[in-house]
């Protein structure tokens, strides 16, 4: 596997929020992490990013152990993250947001930005506007584009469709599918489980901090028990 996290255990204070969680994702694959509220989905993602200290577990990227790297060093290794909230620089222009995304890249920034404008045409029109003035869906696109500016191998998205309308949600998922074409490994935490599984290659379902189910997207979608319990019938 290109990216794998095994036996993750950790939490805040003395309480373990996730226990023995395992996830992996390959290049060109979309993998969703699903589950009810409070199952530890976002916590698991923070653990993979190194924002949360782990008690146990190991994380590998392209055969390299990155368990003990700081968040910033993991980013240098090729992981990029789109947080759920506050995921853009609201006071900077759209273009400056993208430039900041490429802070670590010295070269080809302008060509990279052009690439993003091709991927997300709507934000090209708004490039000199302050990002805070954009609509919810546009902001989300800026956020994803900013994360892609680092040229990541692994892209992590924390609930990219939280709080947007169904139309915008479809649009964002379409963008995620497009990104997949670039041979990037995509890992996303989602609340809208069914729609997420429809575009996912595989999915994990977390319950109270543990892996409960995992499998191919259509398998999870079609399993009666899972549908009933997690996907709303």
């Amino acid at each position, binding site marked *: 596997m290109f990216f794998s996290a095994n036996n993750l255990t950790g939490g805040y204070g003395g309480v373990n929020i996730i226990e023995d969680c395992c996830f992996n994702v390959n290049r060109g694959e979309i993998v969703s992490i699903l589950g009810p509220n409070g199952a530890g989905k976002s916590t698991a993602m923070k653990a993979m990013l190194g924002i949360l200290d782990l008690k146990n577990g190991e994380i590998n990227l392209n055969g390299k152990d990155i368990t003990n790297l700081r968040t910033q060093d993991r980013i240098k290794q090729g992981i990029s993250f789109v*947080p759920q909230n506050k995921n853009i620089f*609201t006071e900077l222009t759209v273009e400056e947001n993208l*430039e900041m995304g490429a*802070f*670590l890249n010295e070269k080809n920034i302008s060509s990279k930005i052009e690439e993003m404008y091709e991927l997300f045409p709507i934000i090209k029109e708004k490039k000199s506007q302050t990002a805070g003035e954009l609509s919810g869906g546009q902001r989300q696109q800026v956020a994803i584009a900013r994360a892609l500016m*680092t040229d990541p191998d692994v892209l992590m998205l924390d609930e990219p469709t939280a709080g947007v309308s169904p139309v915008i949600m479809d649009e964002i998922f379409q963008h995620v599918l497009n990104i997949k074409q670039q041979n990037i490994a995509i890992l996303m935490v989602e609340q809208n489980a069914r729609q997420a599984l429809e575009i996912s290659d595989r999915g994990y379902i977390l319950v109270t901090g543990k892996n409960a189910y995992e499998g191919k997207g259509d398998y999870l979608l079609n399993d009666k028990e899972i549908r009933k319990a997690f996907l709303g019938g």
Partner: protein
Amino acid sequence: MDFLNAIILISNFIIVPAITYGSQLALGAIGVTLIYGVLRFANFAYGDLMAFGTMIVILTTWYLQSLGVTFGFLPTALLALPIGIIVTIAISLFFDKTVFEYYRKKKSNPVTFIVVSLGLMFVLNALVRIIIGPGDVNFMDGHKFIMKAREFKNITGLNEGLAIKSTQLITLITTVITCSLLFYFLNKTKTGKSMRAYSDNEDLALLSGIDPKKIIIITWVIVSILATIGGTLYGLDKSFKPFTYFNNLLPIFAATIVGGIGNPLGAFYGGFLVAFSEITLTYAYKKFFKYLLPENLEPNTLIQFISTDYKFAISFAILVIVLIFRPNGIFKGKVI
């Protein structure tokens, strides 16, 4: 002719002094706002940091003068400025390392930072008074006037004179240069943009690979430069007295909040707004109206909105009004 006289009168007593004072306040307010934007606290030691920087400039000036070095018709202090800036940067970074870093790592609340900056304020206050004393120091040399009132009268044949001190022109030019460079840096360079990004959204800045340590060091460097330049210009224009510098912190805070705390461009305008209000509201317009109105309408009172005693109070009152009606400042827009 009377109309021209009235214009000259207003220029001489309102516009020229307000531009000068406004520039000095603007430099101070931008410094306070940058610290607030990046380090996220109101630095009460800022006035004394300005005093410290100015003191170093004065000491260097004296040393240069003792060597017989002067700057021609310009004040020697301008030659000494780089030394003052370097020493101020050093002490700022030293205090950041020994004092503020600890609380930053602990993620202390803003009030703790304020209290700590009070401690620093006392320390700097003492250092300046111990080293140079509490008294007035006049360190202006070079040409005093670019244009004297009488010369102006002779040239133009008007009743009213327009006096421009060289310090006033130096203040204006230096401020324009400094602020242009600063805003170019913040808006056009990668480091400047990353500073704004860090100020806007610290977590995302970290996720983008921006190094907070570097940002903080750069902020202190810029702030020290602004403090030293602002303090020196004020000292050249008026005179250097540690207590005045501490007091100037208050209108500087007013300008900062009026412009929207954390917003450098707002702080820049805020400085001028405060300066112009202070001066226009305390100026007695009697003579001005004498020029403009027919003889039978001439006023017999001073026509002064509020007495000069309340000069400082005006900036505070503006602040209170802003706080009530627009707590985020009157200039919407970019936080650094």
